[in-house]
């Protein structure tokens, strides 16, 4: 760049060179580095939350109190839920989206790179505030991650830990809204020429819907935190029935955020599965438009179902929330069937990323089916707030999120680093994870049906012991599987097989650039004429696919 004659002070020239180092990461505005920061931070929080989960399982292995007292136990499971749901699950997909979305749509960066950096730092500082509550007098909040008022008001929980919890999560919420504005704008306005909305890869769609949900669901969360904070510290009475407040108000606003949050977590994962399955089936995604429709149907319905978490309050109109919740099964079913349709008559290989996808489909199926049970109010009366619900949402959250996340890690690790993760260790990881996970949570269905309530440190019914012990053993096996993954990461990043630009014969644009991509993402970009630009590029000389270059409006083969 010719800058010698400029009247302005010279700017650093070498800013696009790879420098590494801590200063680089502190000042970066590169979406790829910010994505990496998101992924590492959220994975660290996942490990912390996992340790807390193991503590919970140790305590529950036998009746009575062995490992910790009731207060510690309440703090441990509260922080487990808080870390996992607010600080890990919703953020790891933001990290992946940050890294991959600009690459998938052929952009050089996100729309607002500096604001992107700011939303990461807000997320980190918010998380640190929540974690700092471990070190204040009275310890962290012990009110469950839902923090129902009035239990979370000053009258019933005095400690500063609760205030730090609210403030930290409010800051993370602001980070989420800022990041959502950024990513939605990026996807709407930064797509390269030819990349119409209905040619963007499914992962980008997943991130788009996920960020739109954040945009509409986080404001109610911030509102309810503000109300709770005012009630705790400035003498407001929103949730106090003796002065005209209403405890049910808290549940309404919280769950108006809380149910979309489930889909905030799971929709990018659907996107990952929809990217990985076609690549390893060597076929295009079956029913692309139906998949996009399903995303939006799930997202829209998720705003109409919040009170199915409140069936047991007796204060909500049951049929409305029942039918809306049941209907979510339809678009979810479309997704599962379309994945099967993608594999059908394909040419399937089974590297770890694909194994994780298969694990995801089976496990998520169980989670989804038990969700149908919970959408029915009478059944919900029986099993709500028992271990049945715990098992159900771990099948969705752990099952869905972690399988999809690991599939994404195995799939895109070569793009991030230029090295392949070890397949041998990957298989061990998958097998231990699949076994450990199912052993842990399947037996919680049974003990939940038998009536074991959630969030108890101690139980007095001896016949619940067996299931709990099996569950604890499974939890430790799951822990081992995560250790195998970490081991795999360190081994592969040092001595992994070089991946090349496109190790999997991928479909979307990130596979045409180098691994890892340059600072400005692309040296050259192919033209986009379908939802598989990298595939078209790879087959540009193949006469069988020549039509995809000459006829942009060609009729797709729809069987």
């Amino acid at each position, binding site marked *: 760049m010719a800058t010698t004659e400029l009247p302005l002070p010279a700017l650093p020239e070498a800013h696009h060179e790879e420098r590494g180092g801590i200063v680089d990461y502190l000042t970066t*505005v*590169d979406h790829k580095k910010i994505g990496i920061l998101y992924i590492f931070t959220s994975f660290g929080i996942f490990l912390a939350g996992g340790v807390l989960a193991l503590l919970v399982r140790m305590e529950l292995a036998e009746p009575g109190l062995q490992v910790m007292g009731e207060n510690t136990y309440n703090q441990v499971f509260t922080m487990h839920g808080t870390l996992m749901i607010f600080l890990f699950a919703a953020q790891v997909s933001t990290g992946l989206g940050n890294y991959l979305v600009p690459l998938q749509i052929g952009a050089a960066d996100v729309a607002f790179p500096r604001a992107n950096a700011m939303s990461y*730092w807000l997320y980190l500082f918010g998380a640190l505030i929540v974690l700092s509550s471990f070190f204040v007098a009275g310890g962290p909040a012990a009110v469950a991650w839902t923090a129902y008022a009035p239990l979370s008001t000053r009258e019933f929980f005095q400690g500063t830990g609760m205030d730090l919890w609210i403030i930290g999560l409010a800051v993370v919420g602001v980070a989420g809204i800022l990041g959502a504005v950024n990513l939605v704008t990026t996807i709407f306005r930064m797509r390269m020429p030819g990349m119409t909305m209905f040619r963007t890869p499914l992962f980008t769609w997943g991130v788009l819907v996920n960020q739109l949900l954040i945009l509409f669901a986080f404001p109610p969360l911030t509102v309810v935190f503000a109300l709770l904070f005012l009630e705790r510290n400035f003498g407001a009475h929103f949730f106090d029935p003796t002065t005209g407040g209403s405890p049910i108000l808290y549940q309404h606003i919280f769950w108006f955020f809380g149910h979309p949050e489930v889909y905030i977590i799971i929709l990018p994962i659907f996107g990952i599965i929809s990217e990985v399955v076609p690549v390893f089936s060597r076929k295009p995604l079956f029913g692309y438009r139906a998949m996009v429709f399903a995303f939006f149907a799930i997202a829209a319905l998720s*705003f109409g179902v919040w009170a199915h978490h409140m069936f047991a309050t007796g204060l909500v109109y049951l049929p409305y929330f029942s039918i809306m919740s049941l209907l979510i099964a339809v678009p979810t079913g479309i997704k599962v069937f379309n994945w099967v349709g993608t594999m059908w008559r394909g040419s399937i290989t089974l590297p770890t990323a694909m194994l994780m996808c298969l694990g995801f489909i089976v496990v998520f199926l169980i989670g989804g089916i038990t969700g149908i049970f919970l959408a029915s109010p009478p059944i919900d009366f029986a099993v709500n707030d028992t271990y049945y619900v715990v098992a159900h949402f771990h099948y969705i959250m752990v099952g869905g999120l972690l399988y999809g996340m690991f599939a994404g890690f195995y799939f895109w690790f070569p793009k991030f680093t230029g090295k392949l993760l070890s397949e041998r260790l990957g298989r061990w990881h998958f097998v231990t994870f699949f076994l450990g996970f199912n052993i842990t949570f399947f037996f919680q269905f049974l003990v939940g049906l038998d009536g074991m309530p959630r969030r108890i440190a101690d139980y007095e019914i001896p016949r619940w012991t067996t299931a709990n012990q099996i569950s604890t053993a499974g939890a430790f096996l799951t822990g081992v599987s995560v250790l195998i993954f970490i081991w795999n990461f360190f081994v592969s990043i040092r001595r992994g097989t070089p991946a090349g630009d496109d190790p999997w014969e991928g479909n979307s644009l990130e596979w045409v650039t180098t691994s890892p991509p340059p600072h*400005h993402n692309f040296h*050259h970009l192919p033209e986009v004429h379908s939802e598989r630009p990298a595939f078209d590029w790879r087959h540009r000389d193949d006469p069988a696919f020549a039509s995809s270059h000459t006829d942009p409006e060609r009729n797709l083969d729809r069987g």
Partner: protein
Amino acid sequence: MTDEAGILLRVSIFGFVAGIVYWFLSYEWLGTVALLLLGAGPGFAGLILIQEQRHRGGTGESRAVAMRRLAGIPPADPPGPSDLEAEDLGVLPLPTIWPLAAALGFTILFTGLIYGLWLVILGLGLLGYAAWGWLAAVNRENRYGRLEAGTEPPSPAAGPVGDPRPHPDTANPDPESSAR
């Protein structure tokens, strides 16, 4: 109507319909308000997109033109160098510490709500300082970018930026020459 606006308007319609149905089924005001707001928010964003598209006219702008527009460079500029590296590095922002500082200020401000007014003032001060530094950096880079785009003559050897040909020559064996 663009796909983007269509998506937002459909979500908006869902919000309004669900809100109205919910009201007549339950007469519960909180959920009704929330659902109607869900209708209003995306609807507003969708209408903005439609209106903006009418202003702008067609959508057929190339990435280079779009990047220049986003960076505040007038679209009438002669096309710059054709390779993406020069294009992108002309508009990508430089590394900066101000987002970190602003986030820190914001966090301190919020923590002050628990621990006292002095932290609020400290946080506000840091936030203001960071915002000032941030805007100054943006301003400097924008002026720099404009001058650079103006001073650098188009390189005739590299070919035009927005490739006028609608489709690349598929028979061309050299991938680099058909890439933009």
